[in-house]
């Protein structure tokens, strides 16, 4: 990428293993790029100040809030969104546990919550309840009071997930 200032650029990213290239305005937020330009609408927007975490994705393996990044900054990055968690149609242990334990109601926070939880379990296989709460402190849920979310993450970590 050129050093000189640009007001738009071609951005290529790998999202959930697929390559995309799009021209974007410098000002476009990554979350809008993902939702509107790539049509991956699983990643949500719940605030305009970076608090809610509904927009959480993995950017080169790191959990980040995609509403506080410009799309242009993601050039060359590998991104995982909620749509990329499932492999071959099979839910991950976390996704399954969220359903089993009723860890979602409206489901609006769920994509961001699942990404944060996935990130946690990648770094900590057996988190304590306190560690789980800390790991999702940046993901607001207005429906569940977090009770079942914490339980679901515990269940997924300990392998207590029933599968059909």
């Amino acid at each position, binding site marked *: *990428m050129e050093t000189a200032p640009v007001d738009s650029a071609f951005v290529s990213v790998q999202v959930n293993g697929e390559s995309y290239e799009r021209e974007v305005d410098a000002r476009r937020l990554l979350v809008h790029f993902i939702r509107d330009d790539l049509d991956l609408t699983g990643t949500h927007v719940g605030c*305009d100040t970076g608090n809610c975490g509904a927009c959480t994705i993995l950017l080169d393996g790191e959990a980040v809030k995609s509403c506080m990044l410009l799309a242009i900054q993601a050039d060359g990055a590998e991104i995982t969104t909620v749509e990329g968690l499932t492999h071959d149609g099979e839910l991950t242990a976390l996704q399954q546990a969220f359903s089993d334990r009723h860890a979602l109601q409206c489901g609006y926070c769920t994509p961001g919550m699942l990404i944060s939880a996935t990130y946690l379990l990648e770094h900590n296989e057996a988190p304590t309840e306190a560690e789980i709460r800390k790991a999702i402190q940046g993901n607001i849920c207005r429906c569940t009071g977090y009770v079942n979310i914490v339980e679901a993450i515990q269940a997924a970590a300990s392998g207590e997930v029933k599968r059909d």
Partner: protein
Amino acid sequence: MLLREVEYARPASVDDAIRLLSEHPNARALAGGQTLVNVMKARAAAPDILVDLNRLDDLRSVGVTPDGGLELGAMATYTQLVGSPEVHSTRPIVAEVASQIADVQVRNRGTIGGNVCSADPTNHFLPLMVALDATMTIAGVDGQRTVPAEQFFLGVYFTAAGPGELLTRITIPPARRGDGFAAVPIGADGTCIVNAAATLEEGGARIAIGCVAATPVRATEMESVLSGADVSDERISEAARGLGASLDPPSDVHASADYRRHLAEVCAVRAVRHAAGRS
């Protein structure tokens, strides 16, 4: 909400970044973006050019200085600080405080440089840098200079790193007797209502209070009372008496000025106790 039109540049080197910042009067450095992008969304700031520092690996280093202090690249993220063996072996308070900021996602992007350069009076690192007596290295087209933390913070969102300049490094002296930090946030982990940091040295203390003025305030009276070796709980409490009255903090929806005065004393005491290993 949504940003105004803006240009974007990704400098290849620190020099390149400085050149871009100095050539364009309304250019801004983009660090973690965890403050800047939000401010731009609200259209409270509208730079013409964003100079993205994220790929300048030089600025990400975390190292120990020859005298056993810490040298932190401005772009070191909170997550880096939390996990850094160098930080833990020298001034672990830096990691401890970094881990209290916001949440994992913000810690993965937010930087210590951005934290101090955004100079939001409620930020965690402002009083801490003052208490630790950190030195800020600022680079511009005419070379670099250093500024002690206490002189770095000039006002709300306003620091000694002026237009066209870049904070490149923060240097923290070697460990003293102990460091401490205390805060009363909104809820378990919200914005600080008042915070305070303290370092106990041989024959002295450095105590700084945040959220009570545009910039961190040194509790000089309290420091002088604690200049001796006695840092018993009683002594600390006694030292804090009158601190609140010396302040002129703002009133807002989270606290009246009086409440902040009171919390300043409580937080100062707790930070010193923490530094004395007594919390």
